[in-house]
């Protein structure tokens, strides 16, 4: 199964069709596209679905906010972070993690940009001077 240029372009077109008016992926539409491809079995259907899944995965990752903190955050703190991030990015999913190795503070990753405000990273930066 080879993902050719044509298949890649088709997958991209399908992904575009799955976006709502706000430019975000609509879960319902994604499901419908997947079922339709499986039912109709077009030429290179499997490759198309693989490419499509990959694109959906990348899109999901770009809209995932992973917040890692040294200590568990309270409901109120989480809400404050949510409000701030939602103002900047639309359609975020939140993942909350704990990592005592951070020592203190927290690190926020949205898609592939990381804002690191942990004590560990500050110490690391100091050690590099």
């Amino acid at each position, binding site marked *: 199964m080879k993902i050719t240029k044509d298949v890649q372009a088709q997958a991209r077109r399908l992904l575009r069709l799955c976006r709502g008016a706000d430019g975000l992926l609509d879960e319902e539409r994604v499901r419908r596209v997947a079922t339709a491809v499986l039912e109709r079995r077009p030429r290179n259907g499997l490759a198309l679905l693989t490419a499509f899944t990959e694109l959906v995965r*990348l899109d999901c990752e770009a809209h995932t906010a992973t917040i890692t903190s040294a200590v568990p955050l309270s409901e109120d703190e989480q809400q404050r972070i949510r409000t701030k991030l939602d103002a900047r990015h639309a359609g975020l999913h939140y993942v909350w993690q704990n990592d005592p190795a951070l020592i203190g503070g927290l690190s926020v990753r949205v898609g592939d940009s990381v804002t*690191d405000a942990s004590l560990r990273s500050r110490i690391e*930066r100091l050690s590099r001077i």
Partner: protein
Amino acid sequence: MSNIVQELEAQIRNAAAAAVSENVGTIKAIGDGVARIEGLSNAMLNEMIEFPGGVMGLAMNLEENEVGAVLIGSGSHLREGDTCKTTGRLLQVPVGPGLLGRVVDTLGNPLDGKGPVEAAAHYPVEKIASGIISRQGVNQPVQTGILPIDAMIPIGRGQRELIIGDRSTGKTALAIDTIISQARQNKRAEEQGTEGYRPLYSIYVAIGQKRANVSRLVAKLEESGALPYTIVVVASASDSAAMQYLAPYAGCAMGEYFMDQGQDALIVYDDLSKHAVAYRQVSLILRRPSGREAYPGDVFYLHSRLLERAARINSEGGRKGGSLTALPVIETQAGDVSAYIPTNVISITDGQIFLDTDLFYQGVRPAINVGISVSRVGSSAQTKIVKKLAGSVKLDLAQFEELQAFAQFGSDLDAATKAKLERGSRIVELFKQGQYEPKSLGIEVINLYAIQRGYLDDVPVSDIRRVRAELEEEASVNAADLLAAIETEKTLTDDIDARLKAFMTSFKNSRKH
């Protein structure tokens, strides 16, 4: 000192800042010195990417969801799934006079065990060449000290002259002799305190060569006292292809520093065939489409942007009027100059010096094939006295080569043809020159004067080199003031003409007795 304290304080302030934003990516695949990275959506072309363990990479392919980066240095500890981040910086190398006399790698790290390199500044490796307005024509000579080159294929400061030939025909020897010659001239001018002398610093970039060869070459430069005026940049055969690909650009950045300071520099790229091969390897591993001989489509631009950075800058509008002369070296296969890379580089440069295997084994060394060697801009920079004396040498030699082919068939030749043959064979003999023996301008002039004015016509061809050695010794011992006058005047004035004549006559007379 207070500057350093302030800098440190600023760095500490930065490091202590509450939060930093970074653009990160995940390694999807790694191997052969190339990493494919997912993420890094803000990466820029040729930006440095930082991998765990301080290893750096260079973002060379920017695709929809992926970045292809070549690793600079060893990436054996990197694994799939490792995180890397953008740095917002371009690859830079240390530059400055502190590098003279040093042997460094592509990134400017010392390889000679003489301690850390003192950098005056850091220059980006890739830089757009200076524009049209800032340039001026080539008008100062590079005295290579190799008689046939200075007489027939003169090189000017800011010129790009290709040295091309088969393996072991003396390409590197020619470049090294030029470097040694520059060092000697620099040293002499320093000792005599010559006013208005512009020193010419050399940079030797070894690309894909054996380390043993490089080490021998460095030893030779040191022995001949040329190392203090030379920077040696080494990306040997055992370094990664990425390092070999970047080495000429790094060397060029070091040369550009001198040019920007209003000084002159000479850079030798030894050799660009191996450079093209290294770049082909990087490109193929990055899965760029390949073209003729599997070289990527931008292999012409690879060399043209490098050689375009050699320039002669004018001194208007705050510019300081420096120059960077480039001597790229290309190795041909079985004398085939019409192969892909040789034709590319021939068309980019301002002329070429073609070294011939046949000539080399006939004992004509340096084995310069005068027929197809040219210098397109250098003649305007040629020293006046040499130009005057060598004006017809190239023609004489060309006629000689043509007649020589005919003379093999017939024994009855008219007097004029015979004279041309005699003169030609003497010129060929006179132009033979040992390795590591570059000649000073004065000696070159005496040689040319002797042949042009017919003082060597009665010397048997087999004796020419012995007589020339005597002549040179006589000149340096007894006519030092004449040599000095030639070096300062640089033109064939009536006075110098008369003194040369007197010297030659007395030399001839002394030989008769």
